[in-house]
């Protein structure tokens, strides 16, 4: 019996040691697996590309004149803050997301700068009636993004987690750029309510009853007698309007929810816009006088 007790105990101890060994090596193993799987996606994407894409986009993705644009191209894959082709259509997400959405959903028409292509890009994603599963579309994205390193890009990378600007309107913002802000306003969907439509207050002077743009209004509002917010400058007022839309509701405004008295504007942008993006938006809004 003694040797059974000893051997059994030794086995238990060894098992525990092995589990400890696994615990120590597990982080690097998981990282290794993830890296290996990401590159296998590139391999799978290359095979899919060969089967589905080269007839229009060229064997090496260099594009075919008069058929489809180049994908193996600097203006799609690299650029700051976004590659030129994404900026041109006002895309606000990552390059991966742009490519993914174009493959999955197709393109109803070519973007303006590439209007020479007579055929439209078909929808490939299963969810839109195409033949490819989500993981296959992801593999194609990984393969296409793997052309970026030759243009000095970083290659396939997950959509970066955004560090939101927060709701403290007194923080110092970086210098904003009005042109980038305009592209952002279009890309993030602000213009759906704010340009001339009747929902949000229109930004453009031409659509305001008093003929004042949002920039001009901001300069006066925060000093008004009925103002309930905390802004001490026009910039802060615009900042507040973006991240804390309920801080001050202009009396009689069209954007108040009739049932609960809250603003219709979602109070989410403190978490989803970066400091730079807010600064750009403010610069753009200030220019609308």
């Amino acid at each position, binding site marked *: 019996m003694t040797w059974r007790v000893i051997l059994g105990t030794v086995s238990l101890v060894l098992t525990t040691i092995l589990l400890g060994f696994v615990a120590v090596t597990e982080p690097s193993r998981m990282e290794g697996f993830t890296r290996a799987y990401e*590159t296998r996606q590139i391999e799978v994407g290359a*095979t899919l590309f060969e089967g589905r894409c080269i007839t229009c986009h060229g064997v090496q993705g260099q594009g075919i004149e008069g058929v489809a644009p180049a994908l193996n191209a600097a203006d799609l894959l690299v650029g700051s803050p976004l590659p030129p082709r994404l900026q041109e259509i006002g895309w606000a997400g990552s390059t991966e997301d742009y490519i993914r959405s174009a493959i999955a959903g197709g393109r109803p028409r070519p973007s303006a700068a590439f209007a020479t292509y007579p055929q439209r890009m078909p929808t490939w994603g299963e969810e839109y009636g195409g033949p490819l599963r989500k993981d296959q579309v992801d593999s194609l994205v990984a393969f296409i993004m793997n052309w970026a390193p030759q243009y000095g890009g970083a290659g396939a990378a997950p959509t970066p987690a955004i560090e939101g600007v927060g709701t403290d309107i007194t923080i110092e913002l970086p210098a904003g750029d009005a042109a980038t802000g305009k592209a952002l306003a279009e890309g993030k969907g602000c213009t759906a309510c704010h340009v001339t439509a009747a929902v949000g207050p229109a930004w453009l002077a031409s659509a305001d009853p008093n003929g004042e743009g949002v920039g001009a209004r901001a300069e006066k509002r925060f000093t008004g007698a009925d103002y309930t917010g905390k802004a001490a400058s026009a910039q802060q007022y615009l900042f507040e309007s973006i991240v804390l839309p309920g801080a001050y509701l202009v009396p009689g405004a069209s954007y108040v929810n009739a049932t609960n008295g809250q603003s219709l504007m979602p109070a989410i942008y403190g978490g989803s816009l970066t400091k730079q993006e807010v600064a750009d938006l403010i610069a753009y809004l200030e220019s609308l006088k």
Partner: protein
Amino acid sequence: MAVFKPHFPFLNDIKNKGLMPAVLYKINESVERLTAGLDIEDIRSVLRGDPPPRPNPRVKPHADGFWFHMRPTYYHNLTAGLYPSFRLGWLSTYFFAFETITGLILMLFYTPSPLVAYENMLNLLGNVPFGRLMRDLHKLGAEVMVWVVFLHMIRTFITGNYKKPRQFTWFTGVVLLLVTLILSFSGYLLPWDQLSLWAVTIGASMAEAIQPQAVGDIANLLLRGGPQFNEWGLLRWYLGHVLLLPLVGFIFLGVHYYKVVIHGHSLPPESEPVGEDTAKRVPTDQRTYFMPDVLTRELFYVSVTTFLLVASTVFWYHAPLEPHAEYLITPLHTTAPWYFLWLQGMLKVGDKFLWGVILPGAIFNGLMILPYLEVGPSRRYGDRRVGLTVGALVLIVLAILSYMGTPHYAVSSSPDQEVVAELLPQTEPGPLRTANWAELTPGTYTAAEWESAPTETLKKLLHTYEEEMVRAADNPTCRAAGNCLVDGEGLMIVEDWQEGLKKITFRVTWGEAPEDFCLPGAQNEFCQTAYFHRDSNYGQGE
């Protein structure tokens, strides 16, 4: 009048005996409660190997405790050791518990939907600490469990324990064998990779063969969820795997073990008079008490088996994970899991309904009623020469059928595809994907001139390529099928394709090879391309 009167006997104890004795007494009492009857001194005497005092306190847990009441208080000396049981029943129970525990952990990270099941696998492997270990343990445990349960049945057959009065124990055992097999098989589908889809498709296609056709069609639809495997099929197999089958197994395990205890562990056949069952009449001097002898043996088995399982999975065994399930790509050679290869072999013999449904059904039914048909009174090996010979023959036939189930037997295929599949298999990494990426120098190489290749890796790959080309040029199978690759040439082209990515093209030609290179629909030519990334690291198992 006090409504609430505090009552602390422990404080009185301290007052009467002093602090230390009172605490020690309390601890001793707690141990006695936990063990349902053994105090610290009893346990120490057990561990020292002292003979039991009289009255024996070690039988108390069998009377008072839940877990021990299921176990016999003592075994016959002749059944307490390795022979005749080899503790295979105990090990089967252990694996049932082991699979339940690892399975419950895996369930936490799994969704039974074709949309995300495969992604769940990747998440489990790349994001969950101990995730791969759990998956490997569950899979390895399942494979070993099939062996253990099967060997348990073989052992029971050889020692004749299925005979009266244990017929029904055998019957429930056959049910448990079936449950084990189907449990193992139903787990196959869940990762939703190529292996899953096609292995289970083979299984479900047997249901389709049931006659009349309407019944077969309905059975097939029920198993697959539709004309081809879909989300409903996956959900059904999942629920069967995690609910129905474990439940059936649990119930039959209870009945099975109840019968084992009721009839007692039967003695080795040669140790009791023919036709008598003396298992329940154990003379006092022949008893091995469960505590401590049998208990330590069982715990010893459990800890060593656990260690072997964990060590195997840490160092070499990894559950396979093939590419995502794909209806449009049928892998070159799909096989059933090894424990169903005999069934696949039978399917190659003849009619699907007869060989795939009727006969297997008859085999299992025959097994179940075996003890009611074979009623010879003697369990002794010498008296059962015919029975044991038939049993051995059945095992041999099973082995032959299993061989016939493998792709080596009677599978027609194209030798050109076989050659490339040898280097670039569809269901496992294979030689190319595990080769040294850096040594795949871009260029065009001919298999026949493998010796002049610039690197060792290329030489090795091309040598394999050439050997396969030579084999494909002339062998019995291709002669019979008339598709030998006469005047064949194997070409391998390596190109730099992207940063860190190489494109490898295999081109096999024979006879009048076409001038053009790998055009669709070309005659006497087979082309296959593969892409290979520097960091894809296929060496790690999945």
